[in-house]
Structure formats: structure tokens, C-alpha cells
């Protein structure tokens, strides 16, 4: 019996990477998966997972950690702590910090702070362009050497088509994806919400869907032409989802994610003028929300990403045009997926976990993650899918409370988050039965 071993007994093991959905034990040794089955022998610690789901740790490829520069919103410590509470064992953070992460030192700083915090795994998405200014390529090769896992200008779309083309070509050499938020800025300037009936009635400047559709079309064509991998962040429109669907049919290297908020709310919410519903892409009208769900069902949308965008409360106490876009999402994403997609029967558990773990791992090229196969990293999330709770932003581990889900009743929660075989977090809402080997040997 190895001293660093953990046996998770009797849970429902759901692993999309092996198409596995069985009630079994999961054995972890030395930070790796050592087996799934019955009678796997003794372990130093054992955990009763009866009635719980045991899944590969959740992976979020779209998180703003805000440090350095915006520590009033979030720090690497608080953001990774929030990730654990949400069931995430791995997150990829965006470079929209101050200074932006466009140097080796920037990447190393984030990795160092994450190591200090010792919560979840953190990978860095570094800037495509110097200063995220959209003009010149950042030193992508050096950034890869420092550990950057992909490239993006974060919430700023890569508007220069030539830069995008070069970035896709150049990143092919390093086998890294470009993540872009598809948006034509000329069409969304000063926009606050989805352009449609509600924006017309409220007199709020609209952001038309063409903004997303046109840029998606450009990105798909550039990926096709260059052979580079483009990942489209936070899709929200019928048209862009259709473009991706057709591109995939032609085997273009395009992947996409959506955020849980965009399948939960529509533009009617803006009638409250509440800045927590001011997102980019904006909350769309109901027909687009329906298409987002369709896109998830047919595999057009590979991943569900929290699009975690913490903002300090004073920033959301401003007029709607001055309030920032975005919302926190790490601590509500899983429950939203369960409540809005699994419970109503849209997605099976295998499909849901694929979009929350296995697929993001593939997009980011994390070969030993997103899976519970023998030898995979022992990043595991235990989920109580029946636990009902009401979202109270004051309980968030994130420093920020800007969420559209405040007061919503959701079902399902991560009850234990295990990173590299270590239990890093357990939910205060549900006690786990845990035993150490020393207890067993006590007469």
C-alpha cells in the first residue's frame, strides 16, 4: 500500500475519454489514476462516494484572474480558490492583466503565484499581440518556452485579419491554438446589449449578431486556409454556430465554447438595467439561446467555459454604459450545466463532462488531463447531482460577486475537488465519509 494513495469507493464514475459510465471504485496512487473497478486493494485514505459522481476534474479554458494589475477584482489566490469550489481542477487564464501577459516574465509570474496558492492547476493563455494591442505578434516562441499553452488577446477580438492569419500560421509551428472572441468592433462600439426588440424598447445601444457572424466567418476561413487551430470563445449567435457547424463538416481545425449564462438567460433580463446581465457577447434573444443548446447537443460547441470575469462591486455600481462587461462564473458553471442541460435531458452525463473536462483538455493539448484512464493525472471532481442550493454571491470564494445568477435556485455541486491525488477542497454543504488507513489498523 503506497502512502500517497486514495481510494474513492462506490461512486458513479463518468469518464468521456473512455466512454465509461459505471459504479465502481477509483484508485489513485502517486498523483495518478491507478485503476477503476472493484477490489482494487487498500489505500492510505479512502473516501465513500456512494451517490456521487466521480468525474475527471473540470477544466475551464476561459478565466480572467485579473492579477497582476486588477487585484481589487480577483487575485490568483482567490480565483484559483473559487475554481476549486466550483469543481475545477485546471483553469487557463486570459492575458488581460496590467501589464498584459505578453512576456516570459509575465507567464512565469502567473505560474509562480499559482504554485504559491497551491489550489488548482493554472495554465497561461498568453497574448497573441504585444500588449494585446492587435498590431504586432508577441514573442510566441518564447512564451511557449515559458509555458504558455495557447494564445489570445482575451476580450479584445483580433481585428486585424493579417495579424490573425500570421498568428494562425505561426502557432502551427508550436501546435498551439489561437483563441479569439469573434466580434467586429465597428458594429458593437458603444453597444451595451443584444440588438433586437428589447434594445429598441429600452433605447440601449445594440450589439448586432452580424458582429459575431462576420468575424466567425473570417476566422473559420483563415483557419481553413492556414491549417491553424482557432478556438472561438463564447459563441452566442445562431449564425456563428451554423458557420462552425459547417466548418467542422469540412474538417477545419475550429473549436468553440459557450458560457453557462448564455444558455440560462436572454436579453429580456436587461429590462432590469442590472449591470450583472451586461455581458459580452450580450445575452441574446430566445431563438439564439435555443440554438446555443442545439449547438451543444450536436457537438458543434465543444466546451462550456465559465467566462469568469470578476469585477469589484464599485465597478458595477455605475451607470449601465460605464459598468464593465462580464460576470463571475467559476462557482456556478457546473450547477448551471446540471440544472439547465442535464436535468432537462438535453445532455447525458457523458456529454456534459466531455464539455466541461475532456474536450477543453483536448483543445488545450493537455494529454494527461480530462481523463480517468490508467496513468492520467489524478485530477478528480466529486459531484452531488441532487444537492439543491440558492446562489448567494456573498458565499463566493471569488473576490467579486458580479453574477447574473444571484438568488437562483440551482441543482448540483462539486463536493470534493482533488488535484494531483490531493483533496484540495470539500464542500461545507455535504459531509464526506473519509477514513485513513491508520484508523483501520487501530484495534
Amino acid at each position, binding site marked *: 500500500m503506497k502512502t500517497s494513495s486514495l481510494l474513492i469507493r462506490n461512486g458513479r464514475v463518468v469518464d468521456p475519454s473512455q466512454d465509461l459510465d459505471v459504479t465502481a471504485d477509483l484508485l489513485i496512487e502517486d498523483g495518478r489514476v491507478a485503476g477503476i473497478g472493484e477490489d482494487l486493494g487498500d489505500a492510505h485514505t479512502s473516501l465513500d462516494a456512494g451517490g456521487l459522481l466521480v468525474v475527471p476534474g473540470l477544466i475551464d479554458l476561459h478565466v480572467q484572474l485579473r492579477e497582476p494589475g486588477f487585484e481589487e477584482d480577483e487575485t490568483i489566490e482567490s480565483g484559483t480558490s473559487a475554481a476549486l469550489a466550483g469543481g475545477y481542477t485546471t483553469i487557463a487564464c486570459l492575458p488581460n492583466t496590467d501589464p498584459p501577459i505578453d512576456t516570459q516574465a509575465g507567464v512565469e509570474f502567473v505560474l509562480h503565484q499559482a504554485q504559491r496558492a497551491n489550489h488548482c492547476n493554472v495554465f497561461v493563455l498568453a497574448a497573441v499581440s504585444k500588449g494585446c494591442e492587435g498590431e504586432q505578434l508577441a514573442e510566441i516562441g518564447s512564451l511557449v518556452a515559458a509555458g504558455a499553452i495557447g494564445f489570445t488577446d482575451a476580450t479584445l477580438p483580433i481585428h486585424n485579419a493579417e495579424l490573425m492569419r500570421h498568428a494562425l500560421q505561426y502557432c502551427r509551428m508550436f501546435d498551439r491554438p489561437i483563441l479569439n472572441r469573434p466580434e467586429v468592433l465597428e458594429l458593437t462600439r458603444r453597444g451595451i446589449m443584444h440588438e433586437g426588440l428589447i434594445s429598441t424598447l429600452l*433605447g440601449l445601444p445594440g450589439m448586432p449578431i452580424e458582429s459575431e457572424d462576420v468575424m466567425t466567418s473570417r476566422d473559420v476561413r483563415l483557419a481553413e486556409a492556414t491549417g491553424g487551430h482557432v478556438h472561438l470563445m463564447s459563441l452566442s449567435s445562431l449564425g456563428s454556430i451554423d458557420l462552425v457547424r459547417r466548418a467542422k463538416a469540412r474538417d477545419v481545425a475550429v473549436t468553440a465554447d459557450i458560457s453557462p449564462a448564455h444558455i440560462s438567460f436572454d436579453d429580456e433580463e436587461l429590462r432590469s*438595467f442590472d449591470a450583472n446581465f451586461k455581458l459580452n457577447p450580450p445575452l441574446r434573444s430566445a431563438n439564439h439561446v435555443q440554438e446555443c443548446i442545439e449547438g451543444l447537443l450536436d457537438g458543434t460547441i465543444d466546451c462550456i467555459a465559465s467566462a469568469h470575469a470578476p469585477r469589484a462591486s464599485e465597478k458595477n455600481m455605475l*451607470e*449601465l454604459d460605464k459598468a464593465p462587461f462580464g460576470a463571475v462564473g467559476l462557482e456556478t458553471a457546473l450547477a448551471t450545466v446540471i440544472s439547465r442541460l442535464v436535468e432537462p435531458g438535453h445532455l447525458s452525463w457523458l456529454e456534459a463532462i466531455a464539455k466541461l473536462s475532456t474536450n477543453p483538455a483536448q483543445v488545450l493539448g493537455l494529454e494527461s488531463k480530462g481523463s480517468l484512464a490508467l496513468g492520467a493525472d489524478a485530477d478528480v471532481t466529486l459531484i452531488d447531482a441532487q444537492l439543491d442550493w440558492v446562489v448567494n454571491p456573498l458565499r463566493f470564494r471569488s473576490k467579486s460577486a458580479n453574477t447574473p445568477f444571484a438568488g437562483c435556485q440551482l441543482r448540483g455541486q462539486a463536493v470534493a475537488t482533488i488535484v494531483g491525488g490531493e483533496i484540495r477542497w470539500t464542500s461545507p454543504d455535504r459531509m464526506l465519509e473519509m477514513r485513513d488507513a491508520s484508523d483501520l489498523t487501530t484495534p
Partner: protein
Amino acid sequence: MSLDVTAVLPDRTAWTQRHLLDLESLTAEEITLILDTADHFKEITDGCRKKLTALSGYTCCNLFFENSTRTRTSFSLAARRLGADTVEFSSSGSSLSKGETFIDTAKNLEAMNVDLMVVRHSTPGTPHLLAQHVDCSVISAGDGPHEHPTQGLLDILTIRQHRGDLAGLTVALVGDIAHSRTARSNIWGLKKLGAHVIVCGPSTLVSERWSDVGVEVANNLDEILPRCDVLNLLRIQFERQITRPFPSVREYALLYAMNSQRMRLAKDDILITAPGPINRGVEITSDVADGPHSVILDQVTNGLAIRMAVLWLVGGGENLNG
């Protein structure tokens, strides 16, 4: 205090709103109550007595985050005619330029025992947000391109004075609908009172979406003109446009300016209204603005009566009848 008031004001117990933020959320009955009350106030103040004591002891704060001359003066005067004290606050040179949030600014003013806040802001929804954060009553004096409820009410009051019942009338709002708060308040108010509303202007400034809520959408003024009982000529809001959505002012005037030539297409008794400030030569030519069909100055007078009515109803001051 007993008052020498002969007119009898309507029953205010029918009024239950703590704020007046927009017309979309009011019922036809509530709108009619405001109009009736305004008629009475107009009667009182048109007579010998200009100053009342209905809001005596109340403090009304004009919180203007955006420039305004007429609306601000009108609200101030209305409050003073009801006996209230008024406080003026404008954003220039205020704490806002020192980085204070507008909610903190409003809360500080409220802490000085303000009863009513009249708010003008360039961003839609700001009065609504304020109403969630302060305990006093909030009255919108216009929020960006969203609504300008008292302007809508005074436009409707003016039409009602000339035409009686609104039901069955065809009212066209002409011009920059996209950026007009006056248009939105008029649309809701007129529709609730049974009028047929047409929005007319260049296709870049008039959303087709309006037809989803039962408003007729038109781009050709000459085509709809013969059917209209009332025209409301809106100003082009150059300041709210990023790139100009039409080629030139000259071309706009060619297509939409109300001039004597176009007047020949109109009904004999057509009523011409405009929220002002008017741009002579753009949406309206001088001969029409100053002509017999124009009721533009009536609107200004009615503005005072509407604002007195709103302040009195929302403020919940001493009942003049009692």
C-alpha cells in the same frame, strides 16, 4: 392650511406608484389621472393664484447629469409653485468628476432629507437604478434614448386639449426614433390611450422592430401624411450618433422636413407638435413652426402643469381638497 382653490383635484388615492420612471409601466388609468390632475393645476395657475402650498415643507432635488434648460426650469418652477424647496445639482464641477459613483452622490443628497429626486441622465435605466438605491421618490426627467415620461405626458395632454379623446387618432412621430426618449414615452402613452402610432424616418433611424409591439413603421412621410391627425416632429440627435446614419442634413430636410408644401398633403385640422428645441429648417420650417397648426408653445405651458401633477402625485403631499 386652507386654500382658496375652487377647482377640485382628482382623487389621489388611485395613485400607488412611488416613482415615475417611464410610461411603459403605467396603466391607461394612471396616465389619465396624471392628465386630469395637470388640467386642474393648469386651471388653478392660469387663474389668479400662481403659488400653492401642496408640497410645502418638501424638498425636491433636481439631479441633472446631462445639460437641460427647459426641462430643468420647468421642474424647478413646478416644484416651487407647489411650495416645495428646490435644490439644484449638476454633474459638472461635482463629486462625480472626483470619481464618486452616481449612487453615492444620490445617497449623500438623500441624507440631507430630500423627498423627491428629479433625475436626468444620458444612460438608459439610470433613474431605475437610482430608485433601487434610495428611499425617496425618483422622477425621471429623461434617461438617454430610453424615456422622457413628462415630455410624453405633456405632448399627450396638448393633443387631448385640442382633440379630446385620444382613442382612434393617428399620431405620427417623425425623425430620429432610434435616439429619441420622447418617441418612446409617446409611443407607450399614446398606445395605452388607444391612439394609432406611426414611427416615420430614415430606415437607419427607425427600427422595424417597432411593428412587433403594434406600432406602424414608415419611411415615406408623404405617403402617411394624409392619414395623420397629429405630427410630432423630433429633433435629429446628432450628439447620440456615432457615424451619421444619413448622408446630409440637406437630404434629411428634403425627405422629412415639415414645410408649407408638405402641409398641403395633410388634413386640414392637423396638429403639429415638437418637443424642442426645434431646429428650424431641419425637421420643421419656420412658416410651419409659427403657423396656425403648430401647438409648440402650448406644449411648454402644459409641461409645467404636467410636472406639477407628477410632483404632487408622486410626492404625496398635502391634499389640496382636504
